[in-house]
């Protein structure tokens, strides 16, 4: 009888002492934190996944670039809020009349973090590393972004034929053919310039070391936990950066990340659940920022499969999908319907196109015209993994299923895990599936050529998941790649969108803005459409 009481008493005392300690400690902690804030500016950036590598050239995912963007710099970069190109390591440039020779004048007096000079030689070394399969600093790297943007490697279709040093501060790119989006491509995060001395020193381990010219230097990387960057005190821009330390911390769960923000453990968080937006409303301790949409979510209709190879059937499906309803129901005001396979902010977006209205009667009569008055069976593929352009994808598909069944299309939903799903689409095994595209550099070519050209409809690795083949569209997209005049390019892309609209190879659904939340004392942070931003102007206010 006595024992349990003693136990309970002990338990009560221990818990009281513990909570007193933790209260005292948390008060102390808070005081300490306050003091630290005044003496050292440390910002913690909460994100869902870790960097894949520290080598931006050999990566193809945003978490790597989010960090590398602040360690490495590119020859040109994008404006703070758009994908318009502005100078960076190159102060200016000129292009020859035939569009095949680009000459860049480089900033002078810039040093890499290891103290070596940034110059034309370094630029040549970096591009040679990416384009030349026999380069000594490659170390099994795949350089998939270089390959994708410049059509292959040296001797295998690379648009960049040579990169030459004209003098120590001038570099010249010779192209095999004019490339209209050349500058946009060069601004991509993957083309950050690495110190050649570091490439030689670290060899294959450049994967986990980082030596660039950027505002921050790599201090440490604890995989799956955090990447810590420290201020580069010798940064070439005056009074920059403002932060002393910038830590990227991995917290995989979206809700936990928000709790960590509210508890002061992190200062910025990306990938907020749209449904959590409400909990932040009217709370002045946070700022809600919206990253401009550089993505399109769409229904990929397999144009090679019966009865989807019938244009009228595809048009009927277009009429049967309530884009506005989907945008409102699943994205909490973050999404807008689109009528083309391009974000509406793009300079090439064809606003004149009249979208397929949500009209079930029209859809039904189109199906009847196509010879399917009683509808047909349709397998609808989906993945349960959310992406920026598809929130709660399974529920989105269920909503679309309800509409399609109203016009007689009998839908069976089949759900796959992400890797298996992508495999399905790339192999053209699906009939219809919900998917999207996230832009890399804001150029329309990056969206339209990738998703609509017949050149990308190769089974096994298709980016054109609809397997839409229209020679006229493919030729126009090819032509637009080398037209240097923007007005003329715009006209070509508008024509492409018109043709695609008529053929209805897919159902363009929505473009989505990503919500980013920061603590109220974070100033100067602007989310960039490409997903990775320069943090050199960010400060923490008292």
């Amino acid at each position, binding site marked *: 009888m006595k024992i349990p009481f003693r136990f309970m008493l002990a338990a009560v005392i221990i818990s009281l002492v513990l909570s007193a300690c933790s209260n005292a400690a948390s008060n102390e902690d808070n005081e300490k934190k306050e003091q630290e804030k005044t003496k050292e500016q440390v910002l913690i950036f909460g994100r869902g996944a870790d960097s894949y590598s520290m080598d931006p050239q050999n990566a193809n995912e945003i978490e790597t670039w989010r960090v590398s963007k602040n360690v490495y710099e590119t020859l040109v970069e994008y404006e703070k809020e758009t994908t318009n190109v502005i100078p960076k390591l190159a102060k200016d440039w000129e292009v020859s009349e035939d569009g095949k020779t680009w000459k860049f004048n480089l900033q002078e007096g810039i040093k890499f973090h290891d103290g070596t000079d940034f110059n034309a030689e370094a630029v040549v070394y970096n591009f040679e590393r990416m384009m030349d399969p026999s380069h000594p600093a490659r170390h099994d790297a795949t350089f998939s972004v270089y390959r994708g943007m410049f059509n292959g490697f040296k001797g295998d279709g690379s648009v960049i034929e040579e990169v030459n040093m004209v003098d120590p501060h001038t570099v010249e790119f010779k192209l095999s053919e004019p490339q209209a989006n050349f500058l946009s491509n060069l601004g991509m995060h993957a083309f950050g310039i690495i110190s050649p001395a570091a490439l030689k020193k670290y060899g294959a381990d450049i994967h986990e070391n980082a030596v660039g010219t950027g505002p921050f230097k790599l201090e440490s990387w604890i995989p799956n936990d955090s990447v810590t960057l420290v201020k580069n005190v010798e940064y070439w821009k005056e009074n920059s950066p403002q932060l002393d330390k910038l830590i990227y911390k991995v917290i995989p769960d979206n809700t936990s990340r928000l709790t960590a923000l509210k*508890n002061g453990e992190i200062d910025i968080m990306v990938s907020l659940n749209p449904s959590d937006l409400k909990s932040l409303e009217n709370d002045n301790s946070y700022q809600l920022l919206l990253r401009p949409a550089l993505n399109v979510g769409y229904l990929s209709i397999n144009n090679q499969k019966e009865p989807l190879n019938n244009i009228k059937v595809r048009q009927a499906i277009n009429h049967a999908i309530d884009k506005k309803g989907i945008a409102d129901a699943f994205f909490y005001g973050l999404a807008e319907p689109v009528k083309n396979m391009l974000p509406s902010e793009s300079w090439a977006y064809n606003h004149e196109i009249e979208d397929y209205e949500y009209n079930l009667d029209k859809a039904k009569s189109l199906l009847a015209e196509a010879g399917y008055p009683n509808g047909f069976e349709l397998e609808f593929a989906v993945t349960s993994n959310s992406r920026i352009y598809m929130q709660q994808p399974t529920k989105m598909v269920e909503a679309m299923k309800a509409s399609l069944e109203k016009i007689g299309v009998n839908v069976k939903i089949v759900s796959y895990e992400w890797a298996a799903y992508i495999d399905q689409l790339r192999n053209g095994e699906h009939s219809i599936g919900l998917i999207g595209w996230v832009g890399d550099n804001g150029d329309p070519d990056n969206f339209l050529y990738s998703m609509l050209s017949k050149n990308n409809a190769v089974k096994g690795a298709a980016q054109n998941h609809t397997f839409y083949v229209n020679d006229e569209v493919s030729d126009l997209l090819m032509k637009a790649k080398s037209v240097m005049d923007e007005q003329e390019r715009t006209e070509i892309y508008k024509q492409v969108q018109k043709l695609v609209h008529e053929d209805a190879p897919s159902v363009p659904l929505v473009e989505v803005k990503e919500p980013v939340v920061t603590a109220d004392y974070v100033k100067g942070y602007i989310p960039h459409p490409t997903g990775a931003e320069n943090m050199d102007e960010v400060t923490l206010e008292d």
Partner: protein
Amino acid sequence: MSSYITRRILQLIPVLIGMSIIVFSIIHAIPGDPATVILGDQATPEAVAELREEMGLNEPLVKQYFSYVSGILTGDLGTSLKTSKSIQEEITPYLMATIELMMMSMIIAIIIGVNAGIIAAWKRASWFDYTAMLVALIGVSIPVFWFGLMEQWIFAEKLGLLPSTGRMNAREPVEALSGLLLVDTILQGNWSGFWDVLKHLILPSIALGTIPMAIIARITRSSMLEVLELDYIRTARAKGLSGFWVLYKHALKNAFAPILTIIGMLVGLLLGGAVLTETIFGWPGVGRYIYDAIGSRDYPVIQSGILIIATIFVFVNLIVDLLYSLLDPRINYR
């Protein structure tokens, strides 16, 4: 005794071979291609084909399996397809993080679970018994992710008492020596670091430890109930021994064998099953490491990761078997 241990270790070989075949077949049977995942869904067809070739994925499956096994036999766990790093090197810090979390959870689960079970058996059919067993039932039934999120919401967001994620305060990082940060901070004499690491451990280890705690409490109770009805307990009490001694010295020793068995099994559950807790609490552990590897079809990491966990599991259960003989002299291994 030593021949028994040798025999048990030899038995490990067919277990691990069988397991490696099962894991290998399953992960190769599920659709999805590592080359596609690594290059991103916007990669070109040529790049995917080349990478597959480079990673040896075009070889026949049997050949792939044997080249993997021959690597293991020479002590090489392989190289991650995704990061191109040696798995041995990569997995150690993750494993340490999980072991620290698991040990803390087990300590909490054993201390609370065993004591609650004992008292519930002692005060059978009392309010304490009913409450403890109801709580245990709830404990077994609660989904870990929900419980973890609730803990974070109450103790971090609302009360601000404890940190919600990670192993330490990223602003004042602790230097890792062994990877068990509590031990490391003690070795370094870094007491504020120790306190910080301990605070970070509390919520995840309670979340992870709740189910084992509830299971241990229920097993302890039923095992104690059986023992408490035996004659020698009545004799002990008749001798005038206090309740405490009867329970903890005489009864518990005989009731402990099934509890020990279940603890051994639970270690395996916690090692592999920590993935949810690790995800919610941003814990860089081995569960998440293997889970991510499944997502990116990083075959060598999945295989070697599961192999390591299985080996640890088998060894823990070997230790449990040996402990039986310490508890009960009648058990003799030959």
